[in-house]
């Protein structure tokens, strides 16, 4: 680890999601606006100026958008539960718990998401009959839970040990200390990377289209296959993903600002 990284211990940076617009950074800020306005113009303008095929694409896709959101929200919720447990396991002094969590992270991080999706999907299918959507959510959550575990671990370790000592000295046990003192503070450190994971996960849900889940991409493929408007369909799909991630990254930066209330003088 180089020195620049180790000195900024409080900032947990997982560089996979979209760049979060920071009001203090004018360059990124305007880049966000340019992308946002451009995307909106295209999303509205294309169906208006070229109703065939764009208007028909617009009518065909909403079901897929809903599914994409469902898969994303369900997966991230489950992934956060898994991540919290994994993160606590990674810092636990209980040998077994620690080793189990570390092994899980190690294994998952070494396998491509697409391979995991196939594997978990077919492995699940072998023993239990679950709906495709549920299998997809479980697969995504197991994968992202490992990454989320690292985020939680880093967030928790970024909190000064003096906070733990102060809490223990008052008579709180370790569990209460985690719940009342450490996690509420770690949450602020964790939020940006969790948000990034959420956005990254939303993009990665496009992979579940191969598992017979009718998300945006699969709906698009279905439409393109029958209309042969491949270029137009994928253009529109790309724009939809883009507008969603742009909006989410903006929301994230607002939320982050709100959560930092106790750090403002």
């Amino acid at each position: 680890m180089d020195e620049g990284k180790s000195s900024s211990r409080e900032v947990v940076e997982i560089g996979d999601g979209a760049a979060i617009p920071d009001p203090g950074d004018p360059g990124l800020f305007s880049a966000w606006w340019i992308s946002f306005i451009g995307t909106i113009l295209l999303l509205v303008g294309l169906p208006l100026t070229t109703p065939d095929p764009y208007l028909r694409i617009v009518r065909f896709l909403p079901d897929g958008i809903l599914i994409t959101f469902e898969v994303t929200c369900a997966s991230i919720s489950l992934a956060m539960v898994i991540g919290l447990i994994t993160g606590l396991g990674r810092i636990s002094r209980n040998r077994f718990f620690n080793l189990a969590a570390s092994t899980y992270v190690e294994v998952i991080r070494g396998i491509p998401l697409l391979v995991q999706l196939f594997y978990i999907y077919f492995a699940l299918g072998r023993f239990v009959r679950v709906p495709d959507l549920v299998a997809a959510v479980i697969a995504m959550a197991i994968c992202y839970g490992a990454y989320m575990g690292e985020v939680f671990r880093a967030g928790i370790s970024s909190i000064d040990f003096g906070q733990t000592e102060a809490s223990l000295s008052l008579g709180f046990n370790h569990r209460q200390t985690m719940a009342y003192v450490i996690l509420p503070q770690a949450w602020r450190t964790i939020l940006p990377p969790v948000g990034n994971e959420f956005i990254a996960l939303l993009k990665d849900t496009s992979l579940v289209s191969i598992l017979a889940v009718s998300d945006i991409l699969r709906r698009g493929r279905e439409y393109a296959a029958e209309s042969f408007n491949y270029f137009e369909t994928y253009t529109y799909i790309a724009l939809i993903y883009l507008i969603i991630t742009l909006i989410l990254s903006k929301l994230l930066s607002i939320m982050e600002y709100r959560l930092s209330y106790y750090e403002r003088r």
Partner: protein
Amino acid sequence: MNDAEAIIDISGITKRFGSFTALDDVSLRVEVGQKVVVLGPSGSGKSTLLRTINRLETIDSGTIIVDGHDLYDPGEDINKIRMEVGMVFQSFNLFRHKTVLENLTLAPVKLKKIPVSQARQQAMQLLEKVGIGDKAASYPIQLSGGQQQRVAIARALAMNPKIMLFDEPTSALDPEMIGEVLDVMVTLAREGMTMVVVTHEMGFAREVADVVVFMDEGRIVEMADPDTFFSAPVHDRTAQFLDQIL
């Protein structure tokens, strides 16, 4: 001395960090209402000794009895014992995500199940006492170091402890803020609180201490009342230390 009731009874404790011996066969008795000031050069083990009293630091051998409870008896609940022992840290360690008032009410409400309104009332009284009632709604980062340390003292007092431990409470403060914190500690001492204080403030030791303990290399070298300690130290090492620091 053995006749009076010891609220803290440390006997023959040893603590090692790897091959370094931080505490070497240390014994110390503190009676109810006594103020013990621990002095010594850095690395002498004085903070380690203080931190063993609420088991923030575990020991390798020896026994520690606090208010009748053996800290290493598996049948004892360390968290219950810690509620009786307030601690003030060098770096304040206020809960950064809580307001000043919430810092004071968190433990009483969660641990002692005191109703929120009552806890708030007690907290406000404590804040008035340490002179920062007007900062109740502020967050710790908005306060000066001296104010933060006074809040930290009030937070410990909010649990109504029998003993207060101070771990170099003024060492992280700008010089002009040391006085305001010491004033609070002096007041607390006058009210009869049992206190163990690790500090470099000789004036405080002279004014408040019943017993001054001097530590060096993990051992208690000298233990005396402040008059004797400062005017006629028995050991060379103590005299040498006082020469350097005064």
